[in-house]
């Protein structure tokens, strides 16, 4: 994991001091609400329905045990004893007091954390594959490049007041686990014909009101030109992105308006023109950062069967909540934050503290946040799995549902967010309660359900195999359902099946959809997504709305 040096530490400390002064001036009436807004947003502070909401950056989802304990301390001391992990691999607190936020930031700085650029119209937390560095099929670990991008984008003098927020995801494996094609920029590690490592660059993807899949504008970018090329994209966007209408201000709208070929031409021209002023990475810096992500001191372990003869419950957990590791004798373990009855993505301070201790015992003191709102212990010895499973079960972190229907992405929705039109958490809980039979969940196979409480799509509903979008109709909460979306592999946007359904009918509607799937699947192996792609949404639509006639 990256370790701060005195430059990183000074920057974060100075940002805390700056924000403390800004907060003081606001509370003293020297800054108006309008003047304070862009300043607080650049430090992750929203004003929500009930209270401010503070979003803390977890760069590309990596945390150490000390940081995790600090997150627990903040939850306990300043908030209501829990935090909520987000699809940008960050954590947010729903109940801090404005006047205490500078102290929270100072506490975060003491463990090399911050809330810089976690909101506002600037470059947000760079995200990546939660299995980076350990997944067998990976080309190279993307995290050093995430860290390089993190540093470059932090307090960037030119790109802190963009037309709209800006999100970058980096992946290093063929299977995209970071939804990179629905990001403003997707960076894929690739090799050219000579075996040199570089990047494929996608631009203009995004969800929200206008979901679009990113377009490739550069098949191969040499490694040392990464930042120079990102600057060229950002400069074209900063200068020409729309600022007259917030709903048309994302880069995807500019790319669409120009066409991606013309957009690419402008970027290439800017890239060429800015050679003299652009930051050019050198090998020394790349290697300096790469060293922080060198593999930990794995033991050489003989392969052992740790499954046969164990309890069915353990075997189910092993099958669903652990993942292959490139080093023999190790596995990655998912900690499910999707326990039935709990808000997806929430973790209590007691859980966070306990996870820190487990990480120290079992996973080199490190934890990762997934964009699906779960946590990962990436480097667990297989022989320790059964014991760990027991401890996680006691912590309510071993619900064996990873990758299944109830492993839902869910935004905070109407319960917390002032933008939301409808609840998301109540719908998630309704689905959890309705689908409590794990044998049925396993029979359904891999299934991604994603719930957003409004069209801003924080819950990524467009790319859910089943997407659920909350809408408000005559003061009531209704839900529009889409089928066939996916953020990995063959990326696709879901198709609306028909008129929205009332809140009370969401789970039963999904049950109807799943009944159609079970009838229609060609073999046990055909997944829900494959079936939808093969037969289209029509058969689902017919059944769901049949009773209306």
């Amino acid at each position, binding site marked *: 994991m990256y370790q701060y040096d005195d*430059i990183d530490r*000074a*920057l974060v400390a100075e*940002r805390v001091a700056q924000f403390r002064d800004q907060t003081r001036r606001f509370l003293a009436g020297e800054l108006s609400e*309008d003047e304070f807004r862009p300043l607080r947003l650049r430090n992750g502070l929203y004003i929500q329905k009930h209270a401010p909401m503070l979003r803390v950056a977890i760069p590309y989802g990596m945390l150490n045990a000390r940081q995790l304990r600090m997150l627990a301390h903040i939850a306990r001391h300043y908030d209501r004893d829990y935090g909520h992990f987000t699809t940008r691999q960050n954590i947010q607190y729903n109940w801090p007091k404005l006047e205490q936020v500078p102290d929270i930031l100072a506490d975060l700085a003491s463990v090399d954390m911050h809330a810089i650029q976690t909101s506002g119209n600037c470059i947000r937390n760079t995200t990546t594959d939660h299995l980076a560095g350990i997944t067998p099929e990976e080309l190279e670990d993307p995290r050093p490049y995430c860290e390089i991008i993190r540093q470059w984008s932090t*307090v960037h003098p030119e790109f802190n007041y963009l*037309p709209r927020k800006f999100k970058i995801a980096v992946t290093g494996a063929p299977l995209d686990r970071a939804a990179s094609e629905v990001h403003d920029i997707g960076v894929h590690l690739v090799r050219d014909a000579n075996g040199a490592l570089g990047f494929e660059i996608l631009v203009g993807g995004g969800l929200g009101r206008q979901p679009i899949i990113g377009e490739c504008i550069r098949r191969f970018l040499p490694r040392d030109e990464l930042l120079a090329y990102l600057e060229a994209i950002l400069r074209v966007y*900063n200068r020409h992105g729309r600022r007259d209408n917030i709903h048309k201000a994302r880069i995807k709208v500019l790319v669409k308006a120009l066409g991606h070929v013309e957009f690419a031409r402008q970027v290439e021209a800017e890239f060429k023109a800015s050679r*003299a002023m652009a930051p050019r990475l*050198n090998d020394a810096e790349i290697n300096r950062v790469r060293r922080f992500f060198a593999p930990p001191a794995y033991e050489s372990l003989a392969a052992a069967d740790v499954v046969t003869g164990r309890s069915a419950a353990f075997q189910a957990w092993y099958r669903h909540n652990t993942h292959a590791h490139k080093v023999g004798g190790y596995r990655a373990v998912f900690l499910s934050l999707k326990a039935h009855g709990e808000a997806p993505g929430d973790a209590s301070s007691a859980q966070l503290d306990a996870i820190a201790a487990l990480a120290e015992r079992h996973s080199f003191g490190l934890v990762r946040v997934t964009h699906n709102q779960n946590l990962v212990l990436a480097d667990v010895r297989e022989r320790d799995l059964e014991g760990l499973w027991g401890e996680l079960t006691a912590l309510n972190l071993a619900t064996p549902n990873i990758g299944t229907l109830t492993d839902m992405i869910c935004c905070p929705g109407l319960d917390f967010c002032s933008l939301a039109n409808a609840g998301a958490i109540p719908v998630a809980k309704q689905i959890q309660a309705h689908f409590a039979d794990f044998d049925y969940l396993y029979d359904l196979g891999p299934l991604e359900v994603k719930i957003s409480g409004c069209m801003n799509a924080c819950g990524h509903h467009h790319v859910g195999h089943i997407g659920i979008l909350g809408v408000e109709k005559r003061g009531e909460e209704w839900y529009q359902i889409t089928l066939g979306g996916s953020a990995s592999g063959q990326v696709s946007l879901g198709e609306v099946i028909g008129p929205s359904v009332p809140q009370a009918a969401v789970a039963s509607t999904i049950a109807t959809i799943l009944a159609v799937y079970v009838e229609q699947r060609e073999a046990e192996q055909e997944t829900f997504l494959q079936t939808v792609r093969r037969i289209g949404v029509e058969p689902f639509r017919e059944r769901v709305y049949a009773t209306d006639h």
Partner: protein
Amino acid sequence: MRLIIKRRELVSDPWRYPGESEGGGPAALPLAEFLEAVRRGSAPASGIGIWMVPTDEVEALAAQLHRVQLVIVHFPKDGEGRGFSQGRLLRERYRFTGELRAAGPIKRDYMYLLARCGFDAFDLHPGEDLQAAIGALATFSVAYQPGDETLVQPRHRPRLYGAESSNL
């Protein structure tokens, strides 16, 4: 006369902005007006002040910068970020060496970033505390990016940018 920050000093500014009434010092010209004067052959050879708005393209001015003494980049509201690119391009790509001024209802919180983009003069929000604003140039002592070092010289990691063999 308005009081502005130039380099790190408070100075009285003789220039008149577009729309300000007659009198006193020279008038800063909107970019389009200046370019029209160049086309007509009536633009003076030196000492010109230019007034740029967010939609103005710096490329149009690049070939005429030898006539220009001052560029005022207008930031009409909080969050308008095009001026940062305008400033940086003028300084770094087109090597403009005259006064580069940020003007508008902007608070001191933007000063450090503006200075890093090459601005060396600031006409801030009328209510802003100008002494405190000069102090805001010291907000950060370190930076991850290269940038203009006229007013602030943050520490960098020396080997981050440029060829490995260079002595950057």
